[in-house]
Structure formats: C-alpha cells, structure tokens
C-alpha cells in the first residue's frame, strides 16, 4: 500500500454508538475522520433507552463521556444533517459527495440555552418521542441531546412556509439563529469507509392482529422505552394514555419475526429489561410475557433472566392470536404449543418488534456497491472469516447495519473496523 492510503482520512457513516466508537479509535491513532449523521444529533438509538441490559446501566450516562470525547476530538469532523449522495473511486482513494442540510442555528454561537423554543408558535409530533409528545419547529429532540444545538424543521417552520415569523431569532441573545444558511454539497476524499447506519423497528402497523394504533392500551417497545425515560414525555412516569398507572401488562415478543424470517437477537433481553424496570417502578404490577423461544445467549444473560423471573413475572410460551378491547381492559388471546386457547386480561400491552435494516440501506448499498443479505442487511465479505469487511475493499460494516445485535457486539465490530483500517496487513 502507498503512504497515501495508509494515512488517508476515513469516512464513518452514522453517529450511533458504532460510528462513535469507530471514529474515536481511528482519530486517536492520528487519522482524520469525517463522521456523518443523518439526524441533528449523535448517539443513535441507544440514547432513547433509559437503561440497558443486563446491568441496568443508564444508557445516556454511559455514552455521554464518549459523546463528549467525540465532540472535543480535533481529528473528528462531525457533519450532522448529512447524507451520502454519491461514491466513486476505490480503496485508498474514494471520493464521496455529501449533502449537508442547513441547521439554521450556528453551531459556534449557540450555547444551547433553549430560549428559542418557547416563542415558536408551531407544535408538531416529536418523532424522537414516537409521537407521544409535541415539539416546536425549532427544537432539540430530547433534553441532553448532543450537540446541544437546536435545528429548524423547515417543513413546519412558518418562516420557511412563507410567513413573517422570526420569533426564534428575536429570542436568541447570541445571534445564533441564521435563516440565511444554505444546504451544502461537500466532496470528501477518503481512504476507507465505515458503514454504521444501525437499525429501524419493524413497522407494527403491517400486522393488524395486535390492535396497534387502534387500541389505546397497546404500545410498541420503543414507545415504552421513551415512557420509561427520565427525559421522555412523562419524565419516566409509567402511565397509560388515561394518565393512570397500569396494573397489569402483557409483553408480546417476536412481533414481525415471522414476516422478517429471523430472530432479532436482542428482543428477549430487551423485554426482560422492561420487566425489571417496570417492576422496580410499580412493584405491584402484574407482568406476563408471551414468547416462543427464549434467546438469551452468552455468559451473562441467563442470570438476568432468572433474577427477573424470580421477581414475579409470568412467562407463557404461546402464540398471541389477537388483542381486543374488553370493557376497560384489553383481552390478549393466545394459543399454546399444545394447541390450548386462552385469554389474558391486561390494561397495557407492549409489542416487542423485530429489528430491521435502516430505511436508506438499499440506496446506500447501491451507492457503495456492496451487497445486501436476503433480509436487507449489509453483507459481510465472508461471514466467518471477514465479518466486518464487505465485497468492496476499503468499505467496512459495523453494528446493526450488518444484522441485529446487542451493544457489546456492536462496539466490538466498530473496534474491529478500526483494526482492519489501521492494520498494515489488510
């Protein structure tokens, strides 16, 4: 390899924990890193979780030091609101066209005081909070999001719809609101690319049997994660839409597994985590888990399962055939392995869906010219021997972009991409 290739900058796509970890290692070695992120904030899906299994670590506290380190690292150029537009070249010498949307808030001048939110007259659903609460047209997705600088949502901002409004600019004492910012096109020259675009949740709306979005007491696991979050819509108070605390909860696992055709690896543990969390907050809560096979691989997870189970959770091995309203409660109909049918009453139902590749995966796969698996995840070069390499030299994959996995495996893969890129043996 030439010297140029060995020291060439690296492009990391996606600023979730995988992208952050890969960037930090590469930058620490002296490499220049461009970290691009589609949203306005870093931290990906992990910052949506109040606590993570199996040690019930506070997720945001856990990754905050890494986020701070990233923002302070002079070798890392973070480009938020950015997406890849085109890729050309080959390993050691890629040319990548990036489109960066304007934030309309100056990253240097803004101190994150949030004075601009209140005067904004617009209120829309907050996507980060799964629509459980509202946000303004100038907003940060949640308290503690980094960089702690708002973004203007031009689709909803009155000014960008042609109205005379400059309420946020007037409220800013630091001249940080800048309506004249323009979207930018950047051309980056990099030697290697790390794809760390993470996952999305299976769209539960595709299956009607659970009454999702129709029955008030039915929630997705991600909605519950936000309800559990101390910086979420209820400040961590576990309540139904009525405002009352639930008395009985049914958790339904493997939602979408059949449709997707694979086991999402982390859902059983995530469900156990929710049990642990809910039981802790509402000790009298009755929790029932519906499952088919418990997938709790590795040295540490069974212990967690046993601890949760001993806390008084019912486990029913059965297929849930329907959820319906029954008076003030919900009726969960299920069928066991032996073919027995039964019904369970609950006032909250939590649906635990499959993980699937991010929505942009196919587009990105096309631009990078790397194959996707049958399931739509990015494919490894050789599944056994080169698990973080792709069919294209110089392009690597880490985390849930490659397939569903937990935080530890994601971090290991991110570190592995750094290993491959920094290695002089290829």
């Amino acid at each position, binding site marked *: 390899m030439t010297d140029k290739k060995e020291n060439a900058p690296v492009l990391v796509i996606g600023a979730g924990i995988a992208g952050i970890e890969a960037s930090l*290692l*590469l930058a*620490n*070695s*002296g490499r220049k890193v461009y970290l691009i992120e589609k949203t306005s904030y870093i931290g990906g899906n992990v910052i949506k979780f109040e606590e*993570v299994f199996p040690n019930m670590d506070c997720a945001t506290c*856990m*990754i905050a030091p890494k986020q*701070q380190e990233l923002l*302070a690292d002079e070798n890392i150029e973070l480009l938020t609101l950015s997406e890849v537009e085109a890729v050309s070249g080959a390993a050691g010498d890629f040319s990548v066209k990036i489109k960066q949307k304007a934030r309309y808030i100056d990253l240097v001048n803004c*101190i994150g*005081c949030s*004075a601009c939110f209140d005067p904004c007259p617009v209120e829309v659903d907050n996507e980060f909070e799964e629509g459980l609460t509202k946000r303004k047209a100038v907003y940060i997705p949640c308290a503690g999001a980094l960089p702690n600088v708002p973004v203007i949502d031009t689709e909803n901002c009155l000014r960008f719809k042609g109205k005379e409004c400059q309420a946020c600019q007037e409220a800013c*004492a*630091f001249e940080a609101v800048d309506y004249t910012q323009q979207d930018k096109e950047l051309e980056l020259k990099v030697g290697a690319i790390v794809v760390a675009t993470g996952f999305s949740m299976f769209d539960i709306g595709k299956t009607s049997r659970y009454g999702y979005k129709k029955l008030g007491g039915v929630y997705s696991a991600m909605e519950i994660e936000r309800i559990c979050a101390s910086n979420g819509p209820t400040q961590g108070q576990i309540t139904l839409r009525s405002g009352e605390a639930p008395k009985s909860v049914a958790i339904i696992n493997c939602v979408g597994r059949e449709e997707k*055709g*694979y*086991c*999402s690896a*982390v859902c059983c543990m995530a469900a156990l985590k929710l049990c642990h969390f809910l039981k802790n907050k509402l000790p009298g809560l009755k929790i029932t888990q519906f499952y088919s*096979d418990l*997938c*709790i*691989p*590795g*040295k540490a*997870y*069974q*212990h967690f399962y*046993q601890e949760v189970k001993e806390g008084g959770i019912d486990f029913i*091995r059965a297929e849930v055939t329907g959820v319906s309203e029954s008076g003030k409660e919900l009726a969960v109909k299920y069928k066991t*392995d032996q073919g027995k049918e039964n019904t369970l009453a609950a006032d909250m139902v939590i649906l635990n869906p499959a993980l699937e590749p991010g929505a942009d995966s196919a587009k990105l796969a096309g631009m990078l010219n790397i194959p996707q*698996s049958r*399931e739509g995840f990015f494919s*490894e070069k050789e*599944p*056994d*021997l*080169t*698990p*973080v390499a792709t069919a294209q030299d110089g392009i690597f994959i880490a985390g849930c972009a*490659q397939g569903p*996995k937990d*935080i*530890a*495996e994601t*971090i*290991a*893969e*991110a*570190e*592995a*991409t*750094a*290993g*491959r890129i*920094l*290695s*002089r*043996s290829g």
Partner: protein
Amino acid sequence: MAKRLGVYVCECGTNIADKVDIDKVLAAVRTLKDVVVADRYKLLCSGDGQAYLKQSIIEHGLTHLVVAACSPKQHETTFMNVCEQAGLNPYLFQLVNIREQCAWVTPDGEAATDKAIRQIRAAISRVHYHTALEKKGMECNPDVLVIGGGIAGIKASQILAAPNRKVYLVEKTASLGGKTRRFSKLFVNMESGPGLIEGEIERLRQNKSIEVLTQSEAEQILGFLGNFEVKVVSSAEDKEAKEQDFNVGAVVLATGFDLSDTKGLPQYGYSTLDNVYTSLDFEEMCLADGPTQGKIRLKNGQPPRSVAIIHCVGRAEKGYCSKVCCLYSFKFDRMLQSQLPGVKIAHLYSDLCIPGKANQKFYEDTRESGVEFVRSAATEITGGDKGLTVKYETESGTKDDLAADMVILLPAMEPSPDTGRFAEMLNIPQDDKGFLAEEHQLLSPVASAVEGVFVIGCARGPQSIAESIVQAEAAAGKILSALVPGRELELEVKTSQILESFCTGCKTCIEVCPYGAITFDEDRHISVVNEVLCHGCGNCAAACPSGAARLKHFTFPQIYQELKEVLR
C-alpha cells in the same frame, strides 16, 4: 512571588446575568486576599471572550485564575486552553459552575446570587493551594504478545503484525488452529474447518513480523500498557526447555474454551453407555484423519439409523446459554444426512437460540429436511439390548421416550483450564463462571480491567467463529489506535502519589486500587504508585489511614479550603 488572582464572571448572555446579580458577586469577591482583578464578560466561551481572557491574564500578570460560568463538562477544556495560550499553567485555574448549579436551578435571584458568591469564594480559596502540573509522555513498545493459537489468536496476530510491529504468538500445544481445526464443517455455510485453518496458517507463515512459538507457555508477564516484560518457556518433547525474554506493549489473551464435564451428569449416560458422544467426540469422528476416517459409526462398526441430539447438557448447572450449540447442531444434521441418507434425527431442546439474520433459514432448512424437534424439560438416556432410549418430559409434564442408536450431547462451553492462571498472572478479574471479565461489559468488550491486556474469543464467554474474529480485529483496533510506533503515550496528569515518610506499609491502597496501579516495595516496606497505570480515581487517597496517599489536584488542603468556604 506574590499571588495575583483574577476572577471572571461570565454573563452567558442572559442565562446567568438574568438571575445572578453579577455586580454584587464581583463586589463580594474583589476584596478577597490576592485578588487583583474581578470582572464580568458577556460570553467568555466565544472567540472574543477567549481573546479577552487571554489578554487579561497577560495584562494583569495573573498567577491563578477563577472563572465562574457553566459546567466544566462544557468549557473547562476551553478555558484551560486559554490559560496555556496565555502562558499560565492550566492547573492553576478553577472553573465554578454558576449556571447549571445556580442560575438555572435556584428560582430566587437573591438566593442564586448568594450561592454564586459562596461557590466563587470556595474556588478562590481552593485555587490558592493549586500547584502547577505538567503533562507527561512515555515511550511505548508497539509489539504485541498473543496467547493462544486458535482462530482468534491467529487472526489477531495477522492483523497486528507489520514491519514496525512484531507479534509473538504463543501456543501451548504443538500445532496452531485450536478447536476450529477439529471441526470438519462449520456452520452455516458448511465450509471445512481444517481447510480454513490451513489457509490462515499459511498467511501467518508468510508474515515475517510474526514469531510463532508452539509448545510454549507465557510464564510471567509484568508491566503495563506500552511496556510489558514477558518470559516464555518453550519445551518441545525432544528438546531441552528454552526460556525467552522479550518486551511488548500489549497482551492479547485468546485462550479459548473447553466443553464442560459431562461425566458428572449421570442422567446422560456418557462414559457408562456405548454410543453416547459429546459434540467434540462427534466432530472427531467426522474428521477425515479421525479414528473412523470420517465415517459416522456405532461402536459395533454399523452406521446409526437413528440419532438423538440432546441440547443444553449442563446448562442448568453452569447457569448460562452457550450460544452456539443450537447452530452447530443443525450442522450435525447436515453431516449425518449427507453421509447416512434416511437417518432419523431427533433434537431434544428447551429453547432454540438462533439469533441473527442468517440463522433462522439454516434452522428452517433443517426442519424441512425431516429432522424432528421435541421440546423437553428433562432428558435421561438409558441403555438396552436394542440400543439407547431417550426418556423425556414435555413442559406440560407428560412423559415419553424415543429410541436412538446414537446420542450426541451438546455440553455447555466453559473457559479453558489455563484461564485462571492467566487471570492471576495478569490480575484480571474472572466472572462467577470463570470467564475473563471485560473492562466494561458493553462499552469495552475486548479490553480487560488491566490497561494493555485484551481478552478475545471464548476466553471471555461462548462465541461463534465470526464473533471471535470480530473480537480479534477489535483488540487489534484498540492496540493500533493506542500504540503508534514512535508516538509517546500521554499519561494522566492528576495521578496519586504515596509519600514515603508517611506510608506505614499497611497495603490498604493496594486493595482498593481498581487498576492494579499500586505495588508494594518489599525493600522499603512502602506502597508505590505506577503513574502509567493510575487513572486518578482517588480511592487510595480516601482509604489511606496515614495520609500518605495523595491525589494530585485533589489534595486535602485543596478540598478542605474549598469546603470551608462553601460551608461557611
């Protein structure tokens, strides 16, 4: 030299100024001892603000600086950099957080102002006792010791080795390849294990920066990140034992796994009944150079017509799921079916663990090929004239049985017997199952509690081959990132020190140090801090009964002076 203290209060736009009466604050602190200037500024973190601060430090000839502004998380580094630019040692500076801790949380303006005054007085009192600290660097050795010549160790060695980085790969046995060499086929793509290993060994041999030491054991490893001293003893059967000493900058442990003992579980009849095998026995039988030349045979030489595969053997006793057994059992189905068409196979299992994108298809194909899956809560194997009987109990308590010519047990995986020895040698904690523990289970999965020592593959828990390779590459990533040839390691500035004259040699500090940074000097009968390993957590300073252990920048006088003013 007389001290010259400067105090600057940031208005933070309106964030602090709206709540805290800054003029009152300045009036209260201006007259304090050695304060030569106290002033306010609109936004100190801005470009203009930083230039103003730098200019002020130089103009007033400040020897110490106190800034009252926001959280140290946000701008401590910013202001420390300003100090450096102005020629002031950045440790002669103290930041007071009067935004998050006063302006934003204390509703009453007067109370917020009083609180701010109190905190700034505390910082002034503290900064008097600050001493200048210097950043230190250390030369490091970029070479790496890899222990264990299985697939994880081989891949780590390949990726780390370079003309300016030598890798020593130490393997206990006479050949490389570990367990992978013993698997005739690998899931899910059914490629050959020995074939894969031969290819990797060839790549290893071609790399001149790797020294392979087989029939060798690391007897002693002393040191820390960037500088370990290693003693390896090689003892080929026909030769005299040879000792070799060398230095490395990092150590990778890839000592692998063994199957748990199945003999202690009499219900499975292993070692008492014929034709009951463990998964590794079966793998051995399928190897071309194995005892039956790869033919699957019963003890009487006949091929089995029916095989029962028993999952989760020893799982209850071990207390964890070994992660890969379900998947490799489907591989066994294919190996049996391809050699013995028409063979009847039944799996007795409790929960299928087939996480990940590619594995369900592997399972479904198995199921469609006619393999039977029986969910069983408890299984017992008994023998008889006609073959083996597998008795099982379903979850609902119904008892049943099935006949099989051959039984394959899938025992739990456990750390290899050497694991404990290395844990002790390197001072790495083991979990309650005996696996080596991670620095942080989620955030730092391949690093250990000892900086510079990494753990990969099954030494840290059951893993697939792909996962072991990911971890090998991950350890390489961490090492290549930290140990750059020719670059000094930057050391923690705020470390502990132990004063010789105060130390009574009680060793309390050694017990409480989570980083293994304190050792005992037997000659002088005192504890000694290794500044390279010390992270400055302060455990030793808090625990030391004689006041000998002191944490730089958090000394007793500094903390006392600060608290005295806060509590006044």
